[in-house]
């Protein structure tokens, strides 16, 4: 009897454990954000304390400087175009894989699925050479093109089952109404797959926003830096000014966090859906 209630209504132990977990997970993040409101001498005398008094100068300095906004602009351009590109290419390829029957379909699927196993780390050195030969070093397309390619596997793996779930009857009805397969794709498949597109879109955006290795190789020019490179450069440039580094760091994680928390349900659903095949 006791076990039944134990499992049904959350007991205090469970809540305490959940609170402890959240505390541990959020502690460092809260530390960064609050640290940005302190002065360096406050941080030195008591590294773990609260701001006393609260300082808004660090955030104000970062927000009124050009560097931060330049890097936000670069990161935004890269993330938006990467997202748009990968969603467009991904949904077209996934539609083919989901609804056409042809030789080489299995091979195409296997190609993308294999890509899932190898993040850019393995290909980064030759990729740099390739981008250099294309004359795209220090340009944003030099980041965008490889990112689209490397995000395609996840996108395709998530979207194919999604598109397969669209009922066959809809396609037949569309055919009776003299709608071509491409017309069906455009008028039915795209609107119906919006939730799936949002999932892969957010994943692509957050991935791009956080990407470090690729920009590290391709972008050497401060003008072209995206935020992760910017955070690193800022942290070494102002290594004595911890409070300012903390302010810069907190501001740079806002977009990914906002996007993620708005669409958390979709992303988790998409991820687990992909894992389940």
């Amino acid at each position, binding site marked *: 009897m006791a076990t039944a209630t134990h499992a049904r209504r959350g007991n205090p132990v*469970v809540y305490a454990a959940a609170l402890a977990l959240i505390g541990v997970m959020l502690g*460092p993040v809260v530390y960064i954000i609050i640290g940005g409101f302190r002065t360096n001498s406050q941080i030195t005398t008591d590294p773990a304390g609260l701001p006393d008094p609260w300082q808004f100068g660090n955030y104000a300095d970062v927000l009124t400087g050009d560097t931060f906004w330049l890097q936000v602009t670069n990161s935004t351009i890269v993330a938006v175009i990467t997202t748009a590109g990968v969603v467009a290419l991904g949904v077209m390829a996934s539609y083919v894989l989901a609804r056409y*029957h042809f030789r080489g379909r299995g091979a195409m699927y296997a190609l993308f699925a294999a890509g899932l196993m190898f993040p850019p780390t393995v290909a980064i*050195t030759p990729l740099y050479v390739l981008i250099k030969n294309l004359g795209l070093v220090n340009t944003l397309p030099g980041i965008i093109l490889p990112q689209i*390619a490397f995000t395609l596997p996840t996108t395709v793996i998530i979207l194919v089952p999604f598109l397969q779930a669209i009922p066959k009857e809809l396609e037949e009805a569309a055919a009776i109404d003299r709608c071509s397969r491409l017309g069906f794709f455009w008028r039915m498949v795209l609107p119906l797959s919006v939730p799936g597109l949002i999932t892969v879109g957010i994943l692509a955006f957050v991935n791009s926003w956080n990407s470090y290795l690729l920009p590290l190789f391709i972008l050497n020019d401060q003008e072209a830096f995206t935020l992760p490179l910017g955070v690193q450069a800022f942290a070494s440039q102002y290594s004595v000014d911890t409070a300012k580094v903390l302010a810069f760091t907190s501001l740079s994680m806002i977009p990914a966090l906002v996007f993620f928390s708005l669409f958390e349900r979709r992303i*988790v659903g998409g991820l687990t859906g992909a894992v*389940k*095949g």
Partner: protein
Amino acid sequence: MSLTTDSRVRDGGGVTAPPPARPRRRGIGWAQRLEIAVLSGPAVLMFVGFVITPVLLAGYYGFYRWKGFGPPTNFVGFDNYVTILQDKLFHEALWHNAQIVVLSLVLQGPIALVFALLLNQKLRGQSIIRVLIFVPYVISEVIVGTAWALLLQTEGAVNGILRSIGLDGLAKDWLANPSIAIWTLMLILTWKYVGFAVILFLAGMQNIPEELSEAAAMDGASYWQTQWRITLPLLGPTIRIWGFLSIIGALQLFDLVYIIWGQYVASTAGTSTMATYMVSEGRNAGNYGYGNAVAVVLFFISMIIALVYQRFVLRRDTQGALTGGR
């Protein structure tokens, strides 16, 4: 249809098996071929151009001693590979990667399971909890690295807290002391990635029919017996897929290590990985041929481990999917 959804609930694995397409009645005409080409062409071209080609190029460049300017001319055969396999620094990196792979599984798996079991109960505010424990996973590794490097400095917040509660003895040089640096790295990695495992496990648990645990409870099974005998076995496929993702991630680990042990602390603290070795000995040293050879070694090590894992661990799930429907 019910049969497929049924086996999904039960087995839920098989990450790479392509879902079957419905056979068409007619053979495909030129119009359809054109549609296939137009729709899938761009994606395939991008993928081949920027993913497959570099991997192949690595195989080619890896045979040259090459500074990255002009076409490679100084062919050295397998020299680069011999050097890599004899380099003590590479052995160390490989050993660190091996430790990280095993420790990630051993630390994150059980912790995530316990928390997923706790959170799988009816809780007020479950959805907000799910968002919050996912936060570290969503933050970029650069930020995570910067934040933890500042927190864990000898005069940083962690040691400050330890000293203020009288645990001076525990205050350590977390990042630079070679005997604890790898554990510090594991602590940070666990913090960053355990949320991902919790979310996966939770999603897997929510696919397990509630009737099963209700039936077990009726038969007098305790809460923990039910979890041990019913939830855990049925969660097997999810756990095995998570294991796969974790292993691949651990083998390719770069960002976090490179940020903390490149920028804040000497890289000799004993946390180098194959990927950081590749970047420091290849790109940073200007030896692009050598860097490419390291990439090839990393590629083969990852691929062999991935294939072995699929063959011996994930295979059970695909078999289950084929036979479990009856």
